[in-house]
């Protein structure tokens, strides 16, 4: 997803509502209320997380998907981390704190579609290990409005890393 030049930013009231929506979403994830979080997504949601491949020679950096899930795959991923007996990576669960910031929102051609950009910084610790790790990235969400309800139809997270420095990613971002 890219922002067209001249894209119309949403008006202030809608912006605040979207901000609240993203904060609420982050709270659900930090509290590990994963089933509630799934209700914030459309039935055909696509969820993608990418890392960078740094290229040289005048070629733009390429992104490499590390997650590229449709709704069924995403549900399985969520169910695994939400079920203690089925997960080692998230049992005991990570402690997380998601900071959502730098939010911008733009109308799309369809007036009920909003492109919401945000920066995410997620801090995570595990168990008794006295070290924390960070995931920082830029999110592009396609948010669909239905009345006063919002749902995420498409999430794309571009992490600001080319090498994950703390093992495999088990968190939702």
């Amino acid at each position, binding site marked *: 997803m890219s922002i067209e030049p001249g894209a119309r930013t949403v008006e202030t009231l809608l912006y605040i509502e979207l901000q609240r929506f993203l904060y609420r979403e982050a709270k659900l994830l930090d509290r590990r209320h994963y089933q509630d979080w799934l209700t914030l997504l459309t039935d055909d949601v696509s969820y993608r*997380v990418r*890392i960078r*491949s*740094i*290229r*040289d*020679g*005048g*070629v733009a950096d*390429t992104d*490499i*998907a*590390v*997650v*590229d*899930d*449709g709704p069924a*795959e995403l549900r*399985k*991923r969520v*169910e*695994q981390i939400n*079920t203690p*007996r*089925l*997960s*080692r*990576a*998230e049992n005991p669960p990570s402690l997380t704190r998601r900071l959502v910031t730098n939010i911008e929102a733009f109308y799309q051609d369809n007036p009920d579609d909003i492109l919401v950009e945000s920066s995410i910084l997620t801090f995570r610790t*595990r168990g008794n*290990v006295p070290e924390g790790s960070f995931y920082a990235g830029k999110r592009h969400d396609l948010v669909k409005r239905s009345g006063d309800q919002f749902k995420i139809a498409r999430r794309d997270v571009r992490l600001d890393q*080319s*090498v*994950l*420095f*703390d*093992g*495999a*990613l*088990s968190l939702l971002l």
Partner: protein
Amino acid sequence: MKDRDTVWVDEKAGTVSRRAFIDDDVHRVEIDKIFLRSWGFLCHETEIENAGDFVVRRLGNAEVIVTRDEKGDIVAVLNSCRHRGAQLCRSASGNSRRFVCPYHGWTYERSGKLITTTFDQHLPAGLDLSQWGLPRAPRVESHKGLIFGCWREDVGSLSDYIGEFSWYLDPFLARTPSGMEVLAPPHRWRTRCNWKVGALNFVGDAQHVLTTHSGPLTLDPVRAARAGFATAAENSFQVATDQGHGCTLTYLAPGLPQDAYQTHPADLEPLYTTVAPGQRDMLKNLRVIVGTIFPNLSFIETQVGPAQKAVIFRQWTPISGTEMEVLSWVFAEREASSDYKDAVLKKGIHNFGAAGVFEQDDVELWTSATRASDNPIAAQYPYSFHTALPYMQAAEQDSNWPGRVYRPADTEVAQLEFMRQWNRLMQAEA
């Protein structure tokens, strides 16, 4: 190694010293005795297809640029300027006609030959610039598209090194006329554990699958329908070869719904013409193959959907005694449709990769083992490989299957064989 009292691999007791998986001293000796002397994986041919394409990888822990030189031969040159050491490339990949050092402008051909220092007029008379090119791995060879390099000139051929293991490896590299291709640049992640933990897991750790991976096995309908890892199935077995390579093949149990046995894509199967009939038979009803090419290149072929197979290669790069960097690639047949490749890539990375549902649980347990082992008390207690012992002397010689064949598939034989080869190289005199 200097520590003569330590028994690193005790084949009679079935144990391996914990320190082999922790000590930085061991790591240093490994770099010298294994990684600087063995064939090391660099990249796949399809990662550097166009003229000037390069990738930056490690060989013997030295960073190298892998590219095709002016003549079209694949080379691996040290990514460090001969002047004052700066990296020629600070990227992971790219395309370049020449390498120009960003520090003082020393310029090299892709072959590593020094073209100019840009201050040639100040060089002393008689300085032979041909001695100041980028150091180059003297040997670079390809096996069915996998490019390997070696810093030793006098090593045997790559083909001899792969040896009889090629029977098991080649169907996952080149079973169709156009062979396999890499579907995306590799995932890269660091894990706080020794590289051998990954190499051993992929050579044959059937015992961890139902415990560690209860999540995806329970949740994935394709896998759940075939519950029971079929290690007891008649033709599931492990393999070890003399060079230290090994693998585990597990087959579907009988009595499943008929469509379960269509494991490979029906439209691609007729193209499996570049492997022997026996290798085509090997693919039939294959549930999973996992293997490791000694020392640190592993692969797995796994079902990701009905008649959809992902071939995944990965390299466990040693960083220290307790850290590795993992690179992971997804492959598919070049002849496959773009829809098939798209599905295989998405599902392949869902399972195995930097955010894989299998991967995340392996990483958690491997780092836990490292954390708990990295202290003087734990270091005294060797790791158990006991379930290899009753079988180590019971290798079958089967004319259909090269190498030493071991049944059943759920013992630790392939792992102990790997450590035995490791030990041979580590004990060898310099």
